[in-house]
């Protein structure tokens, strides 16, 4: 059984915790041992947040080791750019094309890095970079909060596992009245990766 290590990076309030719970649930459903690590509390307040999710035959550490992550899922561009030390040559970085300027940028004291800079930081090892307009897709569905599930849809295409396995986990984890919306978000994310 192969191991798969994931890192979700975003801004507090973007829904990384729900997304990592679904990803962890999918791992269990697919027969893996699974561990996750995240930080609650302070980090909710618009700061950088990161969640670790690990699938494997037997997982010890809940934290992914640097140089060993298989997938980075960036909910926000700058946040994706912070994690080159975790990548190896076969890693895949999935980035939502969406900017939330941090305070220093808002105040005009720093500049938001251009796309090429983020790509350069992340592709040093040969990792594959995939851009996705997840926030746009979520807005199209009428709810920008769906961005995490859109990203999971895209990720599911890369990782494998039957579509209905993923969907059954979503059905179990989101409130009943939002299930349909979440499933649509998942499917749109999934088809955006069809290439």
């Amino acid at each position, binding site marked *: 059984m192969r191991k798969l290590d994931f890192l979700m990076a975003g801004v507090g309030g973007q829904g990384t915790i729900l997304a990592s719970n679904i990803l962890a649930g999918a791992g*269990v459903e697919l027969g893996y*041992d699974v561990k996750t690590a*995240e930080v609650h509390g302070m980090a909710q*307040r618009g700061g950088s947040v990161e969640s670790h999710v690990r699938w494997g035959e037997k997982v010890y550490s809940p*934290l992914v080791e640097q*140089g060993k992550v298989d997938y980075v899922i960036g909910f926000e561009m700058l946040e994706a750019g*912070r994690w080159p030390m975790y990548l190896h040559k076969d890693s895949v970085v999935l980035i939502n094309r969406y900017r939330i300027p941090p*305070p220093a940028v808002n105040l*005009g004291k720093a500049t938001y890095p251009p796309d090429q800079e983020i790509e350069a930081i992340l592709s040093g090892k040969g990792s594959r970079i995939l851009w996705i307009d997840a926030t746009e897709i979520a807005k199209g569905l009428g709810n920008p909060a769906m961005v995490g599930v859109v990203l999971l849809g895209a990720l599911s295409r890369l990782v494998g596992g039957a579509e209905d396995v993923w969907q059954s986990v979503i059905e179990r984890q989101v409130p009943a009245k939002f299930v349909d919306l979440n499933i649509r978000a998942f499917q749109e994310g999934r088809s955006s990766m069809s290439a």
Partner: protein
Amino acid sequence: MKKLMTGNEAVAYGAYLNGVRVGAAYPGTPSTQIMENFATYPGVFAEWAPNEKVAMDVAIGAAFAGTRSLVSTKHVGLNVAADSLFYAVYTGINAGMIIACADDPGMHSSQNEQDNRNYAKFAKLPMLEPADSEEAKQFAGIALEISETFDTPVIIRFVTRTSHSSSLVEVSPDQVPPPPGEPQPYKRNPEKHVMVPAFARRRHPVVEERIKKLAEYAETLSINRIEPGDDSIGIVAAGSVYQYAREVFPHATFLKLGMVYPLPKNIIRKFASMVKTLVVVEELDPFFEEQIRLMGIEVKGKEIFPMVGEFSPTLVRQCAVAAELINESGAEAEAVATMAVNAAAKLPIRPPILCPGCGHRGMFNVLREAGVLVLGDIGCYTLGVAPPLNALHFTGCMGASIGVAHGVDKGKTKDRFVALLGDSTFFHAGLHPIVDVLYNQGTTTTIIADNRTTGMTGHQHHPGTGYVLQGKPTKFIDIEKVVRGIGYEKVDVCDPYDMDTFRKVLEDHLESREPSVIIALKPCVLQTKEKHTPPRIDPELCTNCGSCLDIGCSPLIQEKDFVRIDPLLCNGCGLCMQVCPMEAIIRD
């Protein structure tokens, strides 16, 4: 059946399964969800106490009454509850009692990174430390058994990475707790339960004897186990650090400690004799290392691994390579594409900030303009320290604000000053110092930033919200009435969004030179879900003066010649409209 659970969820589940029926806590990251989860089980009583000391006393009382109990806290909460912890070790209990305590190495959400294993040694009681969620569940049962066998509370220690990490836990739907026993009459036993000096003197030898017996018992506990492997290196570890070490030293011999105090000395001696090099891998203090060295055993620890900060598999590997314990630096060396890592380190940081729509923002804007010294406290409002608000001057621990302000008052300062604390913090540790100001004739103006919730830790109820932990209505304890009842005569309640009024009230209080209280009342908008149509900035009218940016609200984004509002992030509170000198921010 197996289910993913965090360590917090799992220990609550384990406590419930083993018949714990009373739980008390005050919120604190990373421990908060222990009590939130425990409260969801049928047939239990669970409460948010105003602070950790009260929570500890409640749990002790329940255990006195013969009901198994649970108190949970973050590491610094045990400082608040320490007085009670120490007496409970003397008096013992009449039913099992668990203290679930979560440390925060790396200070993800804390003011310090103390190592609470020291409390086990200091207060002389047993401590267990789970390494994953399944252990968290099981250790609850073991802790209760130890607690009742040895007549002592038992601490289960967590760290952020065991509290907030999920792993698989065996759950069986038919497993249910034992039925509650009949309430028993209280058996009077003053020699054991009334800690006057004469009786306490007799209890101290009992405590010493007990901890010796516990050390013998530790030798027999299967949660202290030797995992055989290559004998060139033997690793002693516990908790999440054990998991990191397992990845870095896959072939080593391990002594995995489930009970971290008192230590099983015979097992340690045997283990040391089995391996060529003995290495302790432990976060924060050299707690095992010093005890092992005192046994006369040669051991490596803090010469290899740091005393400061949180561990990770990456850090353990780097240290192990540097100390030549392992040489396979493969993945790690490959990982360091130095240029990219340096470039990433230069990316603008994103610290936590006050949320859009937060009432604290208007208050800080006024305080900054007024140029007063703000002796602050712990809560969301601590974020007022960050630029561009830069409006907070002091934060120590919960409840320190008012006492420190009173000291500043008596120590004489040229500056005008206020004490500032939140509503939850007021009930936690603000009542005593606010009495002190009045009693000792101070002049402090105390601002209570009342957002009707415990915001920082994720919206828990407290005595000033009118609801209990489970969300059910209860007696609302009105802060205004409390401070008037104490004897404050100058008290105002004021909405900090309305900055003109807030400014006038503040100036009036500062000028009066008498002890006073301003309650800055604005319920947390994340909690109430209050939201308005976002305004927009007319680029024609905007002169790019930056006044709106000075309130530090994330939806306000600097473009080349003007400022723009991101409607996805904006809460529509309109605070920025109040500060724009050009009236360029308009709501359609």
